[in-house]
Structure formats: C-alpha cells, structure tokens
C-alpha cells in the first residue's frame, strides 16, 4: 500500500511502560539530568581555565553576581521578568508546533513602542494612565510583530522560521532608528523617559520595579489561557496533530494567527518591561539575546506556563552571574551565553528536555 511517505516513521507498536518501568525511567531521567549538568560544568570549567581563571573562582563570582546580595538578586529578578515574557513568547506558539523564533524582534518592537508612547503621550494624562497605555501599546506592537509571520504562514504557507527571523533584524533596525533619529539623546540610547512615567520601584534597596508584577501577570494569563480556555485547547490540538484538529472542525488558520499574535504580545510586553522597568529608555544593544534565550527558557519549562517561572529565574541567574564574572575576573560576560547554550544543548542531547513531536511526521 502506498501511504504518504514519512507516515511509516511512527513506530509500529506503542505501549506505555509498566509501573516499575516508569520508576526505573524516573531514576534514569534523574541520572540523565545529572549527566547533562556535569558535562556542562566540565566544558565550562575547561573554557574558563583556558582563559586563565580558576573555575572555582568563576563559580563563586557567578553566585555572587546572581544572588550574592539583595541588589544583585533584584537584578536577577528583573532579568527573569524579561525572560519569562520572552519565554512565553516562544512557548505558546511552540505548543501549536509553530516556531516563533522572532521573540527578539517582538521584544525590540515592543521596546520602541514603549519608548515612543512614554515620551510622546500628552502631559495631561495621569501617570498611571500613561503607564497603562504605554504597556498596552507595547504589547500590541509586539502582537503585530507576531501577527505578521502568523498570517503569512496561514495564508501563504510562508516558512515562519525565516519570516520571524527576518523580522528580528527589521525590529532591531527600527530600534536603532528610534535611537539615532526619532528620539535622539547624547548617549547611545533614546531620550530618557520622565521618571513619573516609569514603572515604580517595589523593593527598596534594589532596582526591582513593578515589571516583575507584569511578568507574573503574564504567566498567570498564559496558564489560564492554555489550561482553561478553548483557544488554549485548540492551540494544543493543532500542535499535537494538525490534521485531526482540522477534520474535527477547528480552524487551523485562525489558531496559527492567534497563537503567533499572542506570542508576539508577550514579546512586546518584555520590551515594555525593559524600557519602563529596567533601563528607563531604549538603550542600544540592550538585549543580550533575551529573545532567543526565551526559546531556551520555554524548552526547559517544557512549554508549560507555570514552569516558566523557575526556568526564567535559572537563566536570569546565569546571566547576572556572568556579569559578576566579568566584574571579578575581567572575562567578557558573553561567556555566559556559551554556558547557557551548552547547557540547553546538553539537556536536549541527554533527552532531559525534548519536544514531543520531534518524532512524529507532519
């Protein structure tokens, strides 16, 4: 019989493990996790040593930078807020088996919108009104940036990896334009947003602002969306088996567009947090690949909204820790990106995290 090629790839017999099997496999899973962590540490230590620094010093510098004192921990929290949002930006479309790898672009566009609104909204507005409108505007801008690859995919079948990646670079260019031409200032950033239009500080002694609350709200929203609404159900169904979803009457085109737009919205929100909650302006190069790291955050969280929180904290700690590393040893903080990606790849390689449909033919 000639069935479509690739269909045959599904294994002929599927069965679930027995109880002892699943216990054994849980222990095995733990071993694999430990193996991945050990391997990461080994590779990283080798790299650090090659750069002339004692790995142990490096680790303590990491800890110091991430959570050594209240201030640093606060920084970690803020970065975690950013990463939680970019993580959700990736996680929601990923659940529909759609590759939103353009979170970086959605982040930038949201930041541009946030800066523009914060700087240009009329003075007559109350502060809380201005901030609310700014945040909403940034979120909508991000949603638009996510909408574009979504609609192109749904109507023209355009490959979303390529389109969302291209939009990243367009988004960054837009940001640079805002910095250099639209709202220029003396330094490499836009004009600073007036203090009253920034997100307020909520933890004295740190730079933690209400951005954290926004991120938490986003996580809760995503959780309710995915487990409690029919849209969330449809997103999952389309992701797990688009054909069955379609023949059951679901409008896959609409799901594609919506999940991308929602993802983009989260990215835009991250941009608002960056401008209003961290930097106070749109700063050139402000994003150290936060959008792309969101993909890693999403994976480690197994695409589940609630798990995004610990995952984002982990990656945020690794980021601020690398800042501590730079401060104490002089090694460029980008070495942290090496650590992070090696960790994620090893987690993938050891099967600790996996995308469920990696095997199914589509």
């Amino acid at each position, binding site marked *: 019989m000639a069935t*479509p090629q690739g269909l045959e790839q599904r294994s002929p017999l599927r069965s679930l493990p027995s109880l002892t099997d699943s216990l054994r496999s849980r222990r095995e899973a733990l071993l694999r996790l430990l193996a991945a962590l050990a391997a990461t540490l080994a590779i990283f230590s080798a790299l650090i040593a090659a750069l002339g620094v004692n790995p142990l010093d490096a680790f303590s510098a990491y800890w110091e930078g991430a959570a050594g004192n209240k201030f640093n921990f606060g920084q970690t929290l803020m970065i975690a807020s950013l990463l939680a949002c970019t993580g959700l930006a990736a996680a929601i479309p990923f659940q529909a088996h759609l590759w939103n*790898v353009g979170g970086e672009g959605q982040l930038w566009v949201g930041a541009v919108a946030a800066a523009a609104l914060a700087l240009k909204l009329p003075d007559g507005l109350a502060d809380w009104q201005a901030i609310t409108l700014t945040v909403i505007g940034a979120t909508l801008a991000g949603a638009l940036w996510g909408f574009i690859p979504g609609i192109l995919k749904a109507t023209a079948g355009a490959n979303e990896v390529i389109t969302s990646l291209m939009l990243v670079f367009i988004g960054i260019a*837009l940001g*640079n*334009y805002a910095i250099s031409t639209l709202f220029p200032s003396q330094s490499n950033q836009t004009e600073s947003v007036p203090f009253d239009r920034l997100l307020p500080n909520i933890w004295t002694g740190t730079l933690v602002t209400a951005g954290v609350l926004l991120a938490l709200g986003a996580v809760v929203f995503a959780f309710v969306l995915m487990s409690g609404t029919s849209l969330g159900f449809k997103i999952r169904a389309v992701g797990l088996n688009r054909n069955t979803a379609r023949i059951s009457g679901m409008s896959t085109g609409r799901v594609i567009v919506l999940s991308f737009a929602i993802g983009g919205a989260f990215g835009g929100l991250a941009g608002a947090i960056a401008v209003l909650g961290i930097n106070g302006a749109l700063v050139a190069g402000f994003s150290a690949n936060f959008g792309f790291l969101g*993909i890693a955050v999403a994976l480690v969280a197994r695409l589940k909204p609630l798990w995004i929180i610990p995952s984002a904290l982990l990656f945020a700690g690794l980021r601020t820790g690398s800042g501590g590393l730079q401060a104490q040893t002089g090694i460029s903080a980008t070495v942290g990106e090496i650590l992070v990606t090696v960790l994620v790849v090893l987690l993938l390689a050891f099967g600790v995290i*996996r995308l469920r449909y990696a*095997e199914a033919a589509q």
Partner: protein
Amino acid sequence: MILTDVFALGVALMIPMLWAAYGETLMEKAGVLNVGIEGVMLIGAFSAALGVEYGGGIYAGLGFAIVAGLLSGIVLALLYVRIGTDQIVTGIMFNIFAFGLTTTLAVEFVRATEVTSFAQVEIPALSEIPFFGEVLFEQNMLTYAAFLAAPLVFYVLHRTWYGLYARSSSEYPRAAEAAGLSVWRLRYAAVIGGCVLTAIGGVALFSSSGGFVSGLTDGRGFIALAIVILARWNPYWIVAASLLFGVSEALQFQADRIGPLKDVPPDILVMIPYVVTIVAVVIARASRYPPAVGIPYKPSAKAS
C-alpha cells in the same frame, strides 16, 4: 555608472550567502535543516580573522575556517543525526553559542589592525566587456570559485551515487534504509561537508567586510536559508537568488547616488535585504521542504 557599481558591489556581497546556501543545500538534500547556519558562518569568519592574525594571511584564514567548519560540522552532525535532537532549537542554540564564543575569544585573541581581504583579480579580456566585465570579472578568487562551484554542487547532487542516496534520505529515509543504505552516514557526510562550505562563506564575509566584529553575520545565514527554499535546491537558481539579496544589500551603500533612496535614513536602508527576503518567501508559496527534512531519523533496528 550607478548600475554597474551597485551590481559589482552586489556580486561581492552575495558571495558569503552563496557559499552558505551551497552548504545548506547539501544538508537539506540529505534531510537535515541547519538553522545554526548563522553560527557556522560566524565561526568561519572568526577563524579567518585568527588565520590572518596568527597564520600569516588570508589564505591561512581560509585554512583555519575550513578546519573550524569541519569541527562545527562534526559537532552538529552528532547532535542532529546521531543523538537526534530537535534541529530547529539546536540550531538556534548553536547560533547563540557561536556568538558568545566568537565574541569572547575575539576580545582576547583578535586585535584588528589592518584591513585584510582577498586580492582582487582582474580577468584579462573578459573584464573589458561593458557592464558585465566590471561586475563579474573584477572580483577575487573566492568569488570566482563560488561561481564555479555551482555546477559542481549540481553534479554532486544529481550525477553521483552519493547524491542519489542522500536525496532519498531527505525524501523517504525508511526506504533508503530498506534498500540497504545507512541514512546516518549519508547525513554525516552532508552536514560536515555543508558546514565546511558555510564556513568558507564566513571567510568571504570577513574578506568583504575587511575585518571581524562581534555578530558580523547579522542574519546573512538566515537569508541563505531563504535562498535555498526559493531556489528549490537548484544551485543555479541559488546563484540568482543570492544575487538578488546581494544587490539589495548593496543598495544601502550606494543609496546616496540613487534618487528615491537618497533621503532615506541609513537605519531604514539596512532593512531592505530582510524585507526582500520576506516578500520573496511569501511569493514563492509552493515551496515545501522534502518530507523528511528536519526530522531526526532512527534506524529500524535501533528503534526497537
């Protein structure tokens, strides 16, 4: 003449993407989608810088890059094929990794001094031809090699046994296995070879940019992904598509001489190649990847 200058520059700028597209074609035609193409290109460019610094010249740079491409290819082949991790995610992680690695090491090891490029070689007689002469025949060795490589890539894919076998493993790997082939070995060869070609693209980029800076590739690897789909894996169409993108990139440098573009701010001009890519991908709607591309393969006996 403006047109000649734009196209001459376009040809020079298209070469990095052309090499990367050749590499990606080899990989995709064996069933592997390498989104990490950007990172491999970056590593190639960085290795060229190392080669210039420590090896004594641009040709040493080429050698370093080929080695780096080999190593990257081995790592990616292990991940994509042997271990079978999700290809898109692994590719994106590899890009960030390459960015972090090259940036960190560049700070330490690369002190950019003079501008180093491949020497321009004029082809006698042919370079006298109006327009085409200046555009095509006053380029450097790596560029000429890139054009000559097109028939070679076509030949490998469609006129060798390896090519036939590799293509079967991008269409229906289970059938390839049932015919007695080792899908894994076919894919190893494709990934490693493809990464070498991509790394050479990085050298071309280094040469045309005159030096290495962090994040030099700036999305060119991703554009090469688009080129490959648009050209439907045909090396000759790849040349044409690469030219399109090369020219769209050249526009920003010649903008002050082109009427409508004169007043557009540079930050916006930079967007042109990316917008062109999106439009092209949308227009070419019918393109679909061969059925097994991007899906890790488990040989039957091992799957049980």
